[in-house]
């Protein structure tokens, strides 16, 4: 499986990718929606983990673009923002909606479950 992580917190997303790779999960990472749009044109991903709130374009808008580029791609949202509105909308759109800080084992479980459906 190949995962793309998108979050504007570089140290968060790069370390998370490193930790996933230690668990034999291949994960690329980028820090903006624009970079995500570019990289998805060059590689296939099974699942994207998107930060809901990012500068210029948030994860919910980005998901729509990525879904058009790679129909059927699975999405997991992560966020530090806990508004009920975002949670309801995000839960309806993505496979899972996780709050930061996240537990890596929980994330891996969600990734596996999302990809199994």
């Amino acid at each position, binding site marked *: 499986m190949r995962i793309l992580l998108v979050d504007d917190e570089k140290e968060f997303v790069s370390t998370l990718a490193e930790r996933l790779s*230690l668990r034999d999960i291949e994960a690329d990472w980028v820090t903006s929606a624009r970079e995500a749009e570019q990289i998805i044109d060059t590689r296939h991903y099974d699942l994207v983990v998107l930060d809901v709130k990012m500068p210029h374009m948030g994860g919910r808008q980005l998901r729509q673009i990525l879904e058009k580029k790679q129909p059927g791609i699975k999405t997991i949202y992560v966020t530090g923002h806990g508004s009920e509105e975002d949670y309801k909308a995000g839960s309806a759109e993505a496979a899972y909606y996780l709050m930061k800080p996240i537990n890596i084992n929980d994330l891996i479980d969600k990734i596996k479950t999302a990809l199994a459906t």
Partner: protein
Amino acid sequence: MSICIDPLGDAGLTFFSKISASITHEIKNSLAVMNESAGYLEDVTLMARKGIPLDPDRLAALASTMLKQVQRSNAILKNMNRLAHSLDEDSRQTDLNELVELMAHLSERTVVTKGFRLAVTVPDQPPAVFTHPFFLQNLIWLMVNFVMTVCGENKNIMMEPAKTRTGAEIRFSGLDRLTDESVLDFLAQTGGMMLDALNAACHPAANQGRITISLPDDIRQPAISQQKQ
């Protein structure tokens, strides 16, 4: 049963809750970085026990990241604390350089998330007025949210406090899409009420892409709009 809510109090609570939500989001981001760094240390410790050598440079980088995030969280909490204490007294002598810079920090996440950039220029000699700091912070926050709707294509907003003959002013520029109608809309909402509470006045200059808030030297003086400029 109807609930009577004081409009200024309601505006203040809305402001405080929005800032609190933004701050907790920032802190959660910082905690998430620390969580991954600590998790990575745990991972490499387990690997070291199995005989895989540790990389001292990577460990030093992790320590640096964690220290940086502690400083980041501390700065966020200091700003939140300053905002909370701005209600300790109704009105007091207020350094506008400090207040404007505080509001720029507190608004940063909201501004950046919407794709804007808010720059602050402060004079060497800080302008000070006797005012209600919480209402002024609330007004600046309302202004920041308003000016993002009338900002130019480059999405750069400038905020500058300055001393004036009758008190002080805070100028917002870079507002290429500012119109008199947009200002009237703003004033018809909470912005106008907050200006009244501060005895302040709003001076739009749509052709120059600028809007200025004039503050009296002392909030207890007659409103600036009634004074001869």
